[in-house]
């Protein structure tokens, strides 16, 4: 089911129009509120081969701000934050589709416009020799890494905007 536009939060926010690999597009709203990653927990999700969410654990539901019913059946890019450059995800799908593990630091967008940083790992689900889906596990990230990557992601994003 295609994503609908986000509901504008009541407070101050910025608006952005995101387009995705499958041709879908969505208007999102972002606030400056960061929700800290909860200590000791893991965010776990699974998708099918098309990136549609098929499993969301409790931590995923809580951190995303969406109800479980809203997540199941939605594309994983429901979490895409407009400050994440496309190149940061470059190789993710190629890597896991080739049967390899992918790691990356990701800024995710919540339903309420706030954000949370994660260190994400994605692995293919190989069953009887075939890839049948993907598992993604997000854990608490290093703030040092986030501080290093934030200006880099900003540069990449500016380069992508200049090129488009």
């Amino acid at each position, binding site marked *: 089911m295609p994503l609908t536009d986000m509901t504008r939060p009541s407070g101050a926010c910025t608006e952005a129009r995101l387009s995705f690999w499958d041709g879908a597009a969505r208007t999102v709203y972002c606030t400056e509120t960061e929700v800290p990653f909860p*200590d000791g*927990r893991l965010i*776990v999700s699974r998708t099918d081969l098309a990136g549609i969410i098929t499993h969301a654990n*409790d931590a995923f539901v809580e951190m995303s701000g969406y109800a479980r019913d809203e997540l199941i059946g939605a594309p994983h890019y429901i979490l895409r934050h407009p400050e994440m450059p496309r190149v940061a995800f470059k190789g993710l799908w190629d890597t896991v589709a080739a049967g390899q*593990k992918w790691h990356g630091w990701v800024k995710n967008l919540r339903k309420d416009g706030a954000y949370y940083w994660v260190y994400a790992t994605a*692995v293919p689900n190989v069953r009887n020799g075939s890839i049948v889906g993907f598992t993604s596990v997000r*854990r608490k990230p*290093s703030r*040092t890494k986030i501080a290093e990557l934030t200006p880099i992601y900003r540069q990449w994003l500016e380069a992508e905007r200049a090129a488009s």
Partner: protein
Amino acid sequence: MTLNFLIAPDFAPERFAGWHMLNTALQRRSGIKLHLLTPASPAEQSRAIEAGQVDLIYANPFDAAGMVRDKGYIPFARPRMAFDEMVIACAASSPATRVEDLRPGARIALTDNRDVKLIGLRLLEPADLAESDIQWVAVDSYQAVARLALRAEVEAAFFLAQAYASLGRMTRSQLKVLVESRIRDISHVVLAHPRVADQLPQISAALLGIGGDAAGLEVLEALGLPAGFEPMTQEDAEFMIDLMDTLLD
């Protein structure tokens, strides 16, 4: 024919009698003779597995991954609502209040439980600490881990959460939890060697029904698994193994 039933060596010493009670109950309920193996260390467990002596195993998740994927063991049960979590703690007098207060070169005490170390390493990442940044102090028991921590001979200590909870009240009062995992997706599993697949229905039924009477409930209490066991499918196990895979690095 007698089947060997191996119990992973990470259970608390006070549960030893409980595993023997379970073994007896399973034999009575299934009509299958079982010989309990309780190796004293992971190395002793590995030798038994490699020697082909293990027909049934209550395995920790790290070992289960290899046994299911590489050796073809069949997952069929897991403890209900009993997850493998870990605790990072330090002396109560330590100035540290969270994992991010630990620094490179920190000494951390632990046992040779690989699941605990694996999860603990992931919980150290927010502090920018990798395995090579730590001075590891390996000891034989969680009691020894606790002693090192409360004497402040190490900056932190890794515990299986159940083991931490089993420490005496006085010991725990002298320790401080820096972080406790709440993953709730990783647990021990019960596996069967493919050669005993024909007997698996009787064994599985006996294990899953163990809490159905007063005697069975007594066994589960003795094991510290009051909610008993629930079925585990191959896909349930594969899901957990995929999750473990993401934690390896």
